[in-house]
């Protein structure tokens, strides 16, 4: 440890401001509160602060961020500028250091986010020990009141001098270049230790349950009355997630300048408390009630993220509790209630272990694909045949999806409808929102942006040798088709094939030509049905919901894998039918839809309890999700 006098410390900071060439962002006063903001002189620094309004995450993942810029007339000359402004954060408390570490795990782990990476690389952290404890903080109970790594320098104000812990080579360089330091003497080291030991005692409230027990406690209280009670008071204002250092969900929107030529794709903070977080273009909202949204935040922090990443995603800073107007956001209060009045009703929500296909760089930048063919299928649906401009194959597995971009309008997830391989790939698109409406106006030769392929697709190896029963409703046939075509291309690898397909009405039936072709395939049974046949349309087949087709088919439950894809309401009824025929859980596969945006498990919109549908899904083994409350 090193030490320096208060004057030398101020001088050090002043020198950093004027000589280092880096932007020095420290804690300063804003009215009676504190914020991280650019320092103009060292004396503005307030290391005696209790907590800042917003955590330093705003420096690494800003509330509004330009991901890329585009010119609508030349859409694929996309420019993605990385922020490489060098910064030094001064005064980061230990709990915030730990929060940054958690964000690093997420944003720099699998699927590195280039923007975050650039900022992080260029940001140095000078942490500081806590002198004054914020009223609603409970870092002492979580062990986040002190920190040993994750900083370049850690300073402790012990009264008449500043003690410095060097945490990295960069920190060492900074000190040797700009500071006048000596070695800390034993008394000073003792003072630092004492300060840190005495800290937990300053926190008025204590957690009744150790943070490593949160996962178990939450798994036993999914239907605890507290969720209903507290959510009645909830404004769903989103404040708790916005001020949280470990929250990092985001939304992406396209903005166009008034001249309709240039635009930007912007990233902005989003939160799971807001209703539209899980809304898809069709209007479905997957976490509709306030109770579900209120509860989800606690489960994400205390159970889902810990299971996935190994750390509890709460650092006890107390910002949420401080900012929540009806005062229902305090994790300490909630966990203490659960601990004292646990319902002990176990509800496991495991995350399936899925082998990811590695995704390379430029996660956020779409590549160009040209429309080579357009085929109208129904009133609302069109099939697009696309070819990547690079000439490469898409390289997808059946069941995966891509994110389709039209600059200035936005991006939407569409499952791939064609089997893997070949120069082109096919997308079946339903006209339902801004992007899909705009897409319909494009012509052959026009280009769109493609990101992906994403998601967990069908594991064809596991299906080899089995009989297959495909049950598709409406647009559900679109992703299923990619697997069906694959099966027929490798017919001898698979057993009997049965295809059941149901639509609302004859006019909504997709892929009529393919249906005919499949019907005539070897050892294949194909049955179709419609819910009804309105005037003006012709139909001489079965009329009724898809389960009415079951009496017509024959299959061995032990050796048949059922693959179900359709509108949310369909699954329950079909699965009931299959169970009635003694189909074991492990022989059922489903593909579920949620709001997929980033495609790589970061933006948070596609969450289904602890599962990211874009990572562990959209294709799931039924046994893995059957007890998941948010799945069906």
């Amino acid at each position, binding site marked *: 440890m090193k030490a320096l006098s208060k004057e030398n410390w101020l001088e050090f900071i002043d020198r950093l401001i004027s000589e280092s060439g880096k932007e020095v962002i420290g804690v300063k006063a804003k009215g009676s509160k504190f914020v991280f903001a650019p320092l103009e002189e060292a004396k503005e620094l307030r290391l005696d602060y209790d907590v800042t309004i917003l955590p330093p995450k705003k420096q690494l993942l800003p509330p509004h961020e330009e991901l890329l810029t585009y010119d609508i007339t030349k859409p694929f000359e996309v420019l993605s500028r990385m922020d490489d402004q060098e910064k030094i954060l001064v005064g980061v408390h230990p709990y915030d250091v730990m929060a940054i570490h958690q964000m690093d795990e997420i944003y720099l782990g699998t699927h590195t986010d280039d923007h975050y990476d650039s900022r992080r690389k260029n940001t140095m952290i000078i942490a500081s020990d806590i002198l004054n404890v914020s009223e609603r903080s409970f870092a002492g109970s979580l062990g986040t009141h002190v920190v040993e790594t994750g900083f370049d320098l850690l300073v402790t104000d012990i009264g008449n001098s500043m003690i410095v812990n060097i945490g990295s080579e960069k920190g060492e360089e900074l000190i040797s270049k700009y500071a006048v330091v000596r070695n800390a003497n034993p008394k000073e080291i003792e003072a630092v230790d004492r300060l840190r030991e005495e800290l937990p005692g300053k926190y008025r409230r204590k957690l009744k349950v150790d943070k490593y027990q949160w996962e178990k406690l939450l798994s036993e209280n999914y239907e605890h009355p507290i969720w209903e009670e507290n959510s009645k008071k*909830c404004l769903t*204002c989103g*404040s708790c997630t916005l001020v949280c250092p470990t929250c990092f969900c985001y939304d992406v929107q396209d903005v166009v300048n008034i001249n309709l030529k240039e635009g930007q794709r912007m990233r902005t903070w989003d939160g799971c408390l807001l209703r539209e977080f899980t809304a898809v273009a069709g209007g479905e909202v997957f976490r509709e009630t*306030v109770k579900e949204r209120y509860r989800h935040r606690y489960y994400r922090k205390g159970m889902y993220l810990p299971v996935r990443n190994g750390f509890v995603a709460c650092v006890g800073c107390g910002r949420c509790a401080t900012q929540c107007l009806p005062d229902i956001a305090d994790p300490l209060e909630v966990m203490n209630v659960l601990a004292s009045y646990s319902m002990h009703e176990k509800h496991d929500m495991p995350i399936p272990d899925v082998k990811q296909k590695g995704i390379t760089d430029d996660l956020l930048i779409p590549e160009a694909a040209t429309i080579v063919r357009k085929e109208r299928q129904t009133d609302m649906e069109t099939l697009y045949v696309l070819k990547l401009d690079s000439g490469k194959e898409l390289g997808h597995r059946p069941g995966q999806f891509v994110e389709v971009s039209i600059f200035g*309008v936005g991006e939407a997830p569409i499952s791939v409808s064609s089997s893997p391989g070949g120069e082109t790939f096919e997308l079946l698109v339903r006209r339902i929102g801004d992007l899909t409406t705009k897409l319909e106006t494009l012509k052959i030769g026009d280009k769109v942006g493609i990101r992906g392929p994403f998601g967990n697709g069908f594991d064809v190896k596991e299906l080899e040798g089995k009989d297959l029963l495909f049950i598709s409703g409406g647009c559900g046939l679109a992703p299923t088709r990619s697997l069906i075509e694959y099966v027929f291309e490798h017919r001898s690898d698979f057993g009997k094939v049965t295809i059941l397909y149901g639509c609302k009405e004859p006019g909504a039936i997709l892929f009529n030509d393919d249906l005919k072709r499949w019907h005539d395939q070897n050892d294949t049974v194909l049955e179709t049905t419609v819910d009804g046949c309105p005037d003006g349309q012709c139909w001489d087949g079965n009329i009724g919901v898809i389960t009415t087709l079951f009496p017509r088919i024959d299959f061995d439950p032990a050796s048949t894998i059922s693959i179900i894809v359709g509108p949310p309401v369909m699954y329950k009824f079909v699965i009931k039918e299959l169970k009635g025929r003694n189909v074991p859980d492990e022989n059922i596969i489903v593909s579920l839809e949620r709001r997929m945006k980033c495609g790589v498990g970061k933006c948070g919109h596609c969450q289904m309890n602890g599962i990211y549908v874009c990572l562990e899904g959209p294709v799931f083994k039924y046994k893995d999700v059957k007890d998941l409350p948010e799945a069906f």
Partner: protein
Amino acid sequence: MKPRVAFFDFASCEGCQLQVVNLEEKILDLIDVVEIVSFREAMKEHSDDYDIAFIEGSIQRPMDEERLKKIRKNAKILVALGACACIGGVNKLRNEWTVDQVKEEVYKDADIEGNDLFDVFPTKAVDEVVDVDFYIPGCPINRNEFVKIVSQIAIGRKPKLPSYPVCVECKKNENICVFELGKFCLGPVTRAGCDAICPSFQDGCEGCRGFLDDPKMNCQKDVLRKYGITLDEMMKRLNMFNYKKGVY
């Protein structure tokens, strides 16, 4: 073909149209992208052939209703511009009294019987008379939101207003919550899109953009009470821009 755009005003302060003028040099970009065929406040030129009509102001009289219905017929797209057009705004405050009471008070010494100019009914927002395609809320409108919505319409999108409250924007701006400054704020139930401008200047939100589609009004009232508001004060604030007789 550039879309043809026209601006119309009814009972208003014309502040929202002024905000369009306040786009300053951005107007030069705007007139590259749309053709403004009628803007009475700034232009003598006028045409009845327009695609998009912007309506500022509330509807007070039968003659205003007639004029609005004609505009609706002419326009493919009708946009309500500003609080008075979208939700009635401050104009609706007079609906607390009957029309007779108000007329009696204002013009009791003048002979206005049978004079169409004075024939008012309770204030109406534009969508109480004709169908509105898009709304640009606020008192006044936010210039950036205006540009955003117009450019989205021009590019073929369906503009959607934020469905979340002002608090989201307030937090992103790192404002000190005005409740902590001893003020009362309707931010948690008011539609975002103004970038939380009033709280950013340490004044409580007055709800001028209209309440959310599903505002948590009971929770908002609880919070106001928790911070010491009187019932009378609370009613005054809730009714200021979002007047609804006896509802809150």
